């Protein structure tokens, strides 16, 4: 199971880029494995201002729908519209082409308070 070191992780399995004013957000390799076969992604509207832990997107696999939460407070500035035609990129490249949205981070301290790679991987056993 991979979890790149330049990212921070939520207990609800989202990742966010560390130290970026505008940071990409996606779901972890572990989360995409658990979900399997992502067939639909409902993206948030750019411009939306969110609080940490707000549900902002929905990822649907063949079997179930899962909410995706904002890892930190901020403004959604861009969404990965390529997922609309190829949602399976979340499975094939969860930390790359499978990013879901970009958020303008309100407070970097919130990002830093999340788990680093080692702590996250330790937590999922």
């Amino acid at each position, binding site marked *: 199971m991979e979890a790149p070191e330049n990212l921070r992780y939520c207990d609800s399995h989202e990742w966010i880029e560390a130290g970026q004013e505008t940071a990409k957000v996606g779901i972890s390799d572990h989360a995409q494995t658990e979900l399997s*076969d992502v*067939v639909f992604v409902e993206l948030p509207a750019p411009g939306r201002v969110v609080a940490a832990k707000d549900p902002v997107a*929905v990822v649907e696999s*063949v*079997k179930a*729908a899962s909410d995706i939460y904002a890892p930190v407070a901020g403004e959604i500035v861009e969404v990965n519209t390529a997922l609309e035609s190829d949602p399976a990129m979340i499975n094939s490249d969860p930390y790359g082409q499978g990013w879901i949205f970009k958020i303008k981070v309100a407070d970097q301290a919130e990002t830093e308070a999340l788990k680093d790679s080692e702590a996250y991987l330790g937590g999922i056993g």
Partner: protein
Amino acid sequence: MKESPLHALHLERGARMVEFAGWTMPIQYSGIIKEHQAVRESAGVFDISHMGEIFVSGPGAGVWLNRMLTNQLEDLGTGQGQYTLLLNEDGGIIDDLILYRILGDEYLLVVNAACVAEAWDWLERHAGEGVCLSNRSESYGALAIQGPESKALFRRMTESAAGELPPRNGLASLESAGPPAYVCRTGYTGEDGFELFCPAEETAGWFTKAVECGASPCGLGARDTLRLEMGYPLNGSDLSPDRTPLEAGLGFFVDLEKEEFMGREALLRQKEAGDFDRLTAIRMLEKGPPPRPHYAVYAGDDRVGELSSGTLSPSLGVGIGMAYLPTQFSAKGSALEVEMRAKRFPATVVKKPFLTTG
């Protein structure tokens, strides 16, 4: 929770397990879509040990079964099988099942996991003279091997010694060290294939052999998407004691010409009255979230029903589902909408199956 005789094998092979009808069964191995495609394109093997095996024998067995089940079994020869229904007095569906005539007065009923106890009670309560019932659901395991390469796979699995598969819907005996084992040319995927019913302790050997011979291990997830593409109903979702075979579109498997069978009068009355809901096949018109059971179905501003089954069809790449709808909305081409998370998506009524195979 009941465990299949293949439980250890599933865990070893990394299957993801779920609870289904009181059993712990694999929902998937490599992924639902991959497994689905394996069955449509080559072959897959499913553990269906949760299905129940009820044996019926005795000089009165045939006549009695014909009164208990909807299909006409008079013309069913040795080694032949048929899809049929077990109804209550009101014509409601207790279970849909396959009945095989093993030999002479000996029959095998393969019933759904969730219905074994209910079907067994029902049959036992109504058993007549000269009928012997035996529930061997616990001592039998079962596999389904499905896909266009099934026939070749069977030959490899049996090293051609056992010869050919029985014809469509047929049953043949297999060599077994213990109690008898059977191979049946039936399935629940719309592809050619066969099902093996064998003593529990022989199931793992057959499963391993099927995988060695090229079948992809498949879980209940793919079993559900495959059957839904064919418009096959799932008992507990699409069928229930509150629904009759006429409503479920299974009239073909009900012989109303038979003089007597459980539920017949109720069905005749319903047919006469004519106005009843129909299990309707619905296809989404655009890309969207996968439709799922219980999503509301609308015609204009009116909520006219809800999905009993729904999924994203891996073969068609579009959402499909079934719902009981009043007749005026169940005609092919009717414009409908399915509500998913407070948004409505356009859909249309289509003819079953959703997908043409073979």
